[in-house]
């Protein structure tokens, strides 16, 4: 019997591809955003509102991860420069290799924003680095006001948190104070943006945040490239 000491990350293959993805996208000066949430929290609806608004100033592309069907991609098709569907089959999350494959079909230099719509799931996507620059986590009012407390590890890694479907706040019993209270322990860095893709409330705040993030990234990347 022989014991071989290995000590290597099981995720190293994924993480190496994720690093390549990030370098590729940074080199092209595009900002990539991994959208994560439970199914039905409004990721696609948000993109339906976001893409036409950004189109005035930016070129946007979308990678849509889904277990089955191309329904989400079809909804977005006309709204972005490029929309690529990634069917994960039984996979409950996107991985870096799937994103790399999606990137190969895009002209990265011509894109300012890449939205990666992850598979609807609040546990598995958090475990896999895709090479994205920012992580945005959505939670919708109908899901209940206990979501942040139930999935702290997902909300902890968010760069922004979007409370969606706030037009239902008057209809459903919902305590935003509970969400804010949970976030005060779990993530005080990420802004909480309250919005509704139906009424349009909060969409401008979300677009402003996106614009700020894009500008903040564009400058250091350009300097970084000069230094290399």
């Amino acid at each position, binding site marked *: 019997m022989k014991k*071989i000491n290995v000590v290597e990350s099981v995720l190293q293959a994924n993480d190496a591809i994720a690093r390549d993805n990030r370098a590729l996208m940074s080199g092209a000066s595009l900002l990539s955003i991994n959208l994560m949430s439970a199914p039905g929290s409004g990721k696609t609806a948000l993109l339906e509102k976001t893409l036409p608004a950004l189109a005035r100033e930016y070129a946007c592309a979308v990678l849509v991860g889904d277990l089955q069907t191309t329904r989400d991609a079809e909804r977005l098709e006309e709204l972005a420069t490029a929309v690529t569907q990634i069917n994960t089959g039984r996979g409950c999350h996107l*991985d870096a290799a799937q994103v790399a494959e999606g990137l190969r079909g895009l002209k990265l230099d011509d894109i300012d924003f890449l939205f990666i719509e992850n598979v609807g799931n609040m546990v598995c996507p958090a475990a896999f680095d895709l090479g994205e620059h920012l992580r945005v986590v959505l939670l919708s009012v109908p899901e209940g006001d206990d979501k942040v407390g139930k999935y702290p590890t997902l909300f902890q890694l968010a760069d922004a948190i979007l409370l969606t479907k706030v037009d239902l706040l008057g209809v459903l019993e919902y305590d935003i104070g509970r969400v804010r209270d949970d976030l005060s322990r*779990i993530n005080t860095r990420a802004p909480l943006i309250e919005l509704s893709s139906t009424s349009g409330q909060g969409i401008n705040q979300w677009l402003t945040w996106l614009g700020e993030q894009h500008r903040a990234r564009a400058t250091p990347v350009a300097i970084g490239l000069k230094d290399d």
Partner: protein
Amino acid sequence: MHEMSIAVSMLDGVLQAAARAGAVRVEAIEVEIGAMKLVVPEALQAAWEAVRADTLADEAVLKIEEISAWAECRQCGRRFEPDIAYSFLCPDCNRADVEIVRGNDIVLKSVICQVDRDPSAGEGTEA
């Protein structure tokens, strides 16, 4: 159920290590799972039993060690062990803005196997 894709990656690492060592059979593997990866040990065991079939590791026992998470406060640099099911609040500056510095990985620590001949008995030893 991201345990299935983790099990597939684990098997790749195990079989590569086994091949490098000239193993004829893998008896057991030791894996560390970081708390932040939210792996359910029972689900990983079940996934491992499914993926190891028809390989050198088809009866290899999976030994799991769970690694707790450590966080570093981005504001003040304090390192602490958060209760990840409840809070990432820095005990010093009372803000929840942390980098996870431990417990955010899944590591294949070792592979216990039978080798047909001990490579160290031959010419030179393997690094």
